[in-house]
């Protein structure tokens, strides 16, 4: 299938954003269609940000948060997790596959895992095909 999905990755600047940086610095390539959006904490991520990303034509949205108990702001990651759950059900009701929204725990040092997650995630979105939002009317 010749389709390059547009993917937005919301990254906490305390973990995944740094992991992505290290992955970059290691020249460990990951797909170029991943757009990284830096957040101060995954707890800042709102439902509307995810929905807006889909409205703007994203085929997938990845959210990276710190591991439980290691959020610099204590429970930001847990909050993010709950919001993601809520958004998943909302997306499904809207008619967007919930697999298009992925949530990962990651620490700054796990850059290899970041690359792996992004690659696999990209593959799974590619398999899903273009977002149903982009259907021509």
């Amino acid at each position, binding site marked *: 299938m010749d389709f390059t999905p547009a993917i937005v990755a919301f990254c906490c600047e*305390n*973990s995944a954003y740094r992991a992505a940086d290290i992955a970059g610095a*290691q020249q460990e390539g990951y797909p170029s269609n991943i757009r990284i959006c830096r957040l101060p904490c995954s707890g800042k991520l709102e439902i509307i940000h995810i929905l807006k990303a889909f409205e703007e034509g994203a085929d997938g949205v990845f959210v990276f948060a710190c*591991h*439980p*108990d*290691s959020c610099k702001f204590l429970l930001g990651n847990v909050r993010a997790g709950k919001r993601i759950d809520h958004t998943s059900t909302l997306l499904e009701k809207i008619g967007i596959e919930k697999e298009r929204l992925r949530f990962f725990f990651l*620490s700054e*040092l796990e850059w*290899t895992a970041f690359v792996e997650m992004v690659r696999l995630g990209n593959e799974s979105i590619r398999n899903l095909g273009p977002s149903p939002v982009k259907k021509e009317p």
Partner: protein
Amino acid sequence: MNDQDKAIVIGGGIAGVSSALSLADNGYEVYVVEKKSSIGGHALSFCCKATEQCNSCGVCLAKDKVTRAASSPNIHLLTHSEVVGVREVRLKDGGVSFEVDVRKQPRFIDEDKCIACSLCYQSCPKPGIAISRPYLSSIPNVFSIDRNHCLAFQQETGCALCEDNCPAGAIFLNQKEETTILHASALVVATGFTAYDARKKGHLGYGRLPEVITGLDLEQRLLAGRASAFFGPLTREGKEHMPPRIAFIQCVGSRDPHISQDYCSRVCCKYAVRMAAKLKSQISDAEVTIFYIDLQKTESEFLSLVEQVRGKISLIKGLPVEIEKAGNGAGVSMRYENIDKGCMESADFDLVVLSVGISPAVQNQILAETLCLRTGRDGFFAPLNLLDSTVSSRPGIFLAGTCQGPKSLVESVSHGQEAALRAVAFLRGLKKKGLEEVCHG
């Protein structure tokens, strides 16, 4: 700036960095003298030990501190540097200050000019050996050239590929060793530890058997990639794709009167269980066993981690007697005492991790002589009083971190802060005395 507003921290490990930060936050000018090319010490070579959740290993805490130290305007980093001499000088106002000789080995790359673009690394015929940096985004984020491996120092023709390729003109292959003199009224010694050399325990097979590695090796391997990459396809008992069998051996170089390291290193039980949990979370069918003397069940986070791995990894009270190549060729075979069963047993493993302990740093004795400090029977710097373990035997010199005795990462951070407190109190005292003398005069 007055000498009484300055401090020198010897050692840029996590304790030293924590100490320097505390001092710098209060307006003191701090020089951090680090022997290696980057600050952060052991802590930055450790991997994150989170499984499905954070297991409080503290590596990210260390990284945080080191990054903050790097951007603090009051902290001056002197890498590739060592303290080679200390003299006490009397100041005009009657105070006392230290005059410290710092010898800086050439890095061959100018720290101010290097932009860490890594072009030198890419053009080097021996990248990672002749030109390297210890970790990515090391601090300072500057490469360094190793004279012993660089071709420029070995061939008469002289390789200068890096010099030609450096866009910033930051490479100076003719850099020489230089000695500078620093002045400060307080010194903090934070030279850290040396990991116990497991080769000395020949029966455990380290250095002899490739399957036997140390905890530090495992840290580095896990930092570089996932655990599943360590093992090739495992075949045994005629079956393929067998799960890896991993053993952790505790107290290698700790609690051992035979090598006169008869103290507990305080960190091994914790890091072993954390790493065991990490391995288990990455390879779900791995068979992980920890061999130990006494499991140091302290700290609530550790207790809940032990609870979390209960039933998933086996804990055997008892230590191995010998480790040899397994008879059938796959992995190693270990004979060990199972104390709970009261008998000798043996088992085969694909990977054996030796939980090496914290030994006093090799240069402790030399530095102790330079600084006129006392070391204890165990080889660590000895405090005057264990209830206040940062105060050394010489006024104005304070101890921080594992140079004083085994400590965990978090404990080292705390100890660094403690040493800063003593240094601040000392410097404030000097200043007050100075003022009084001026008034009297």
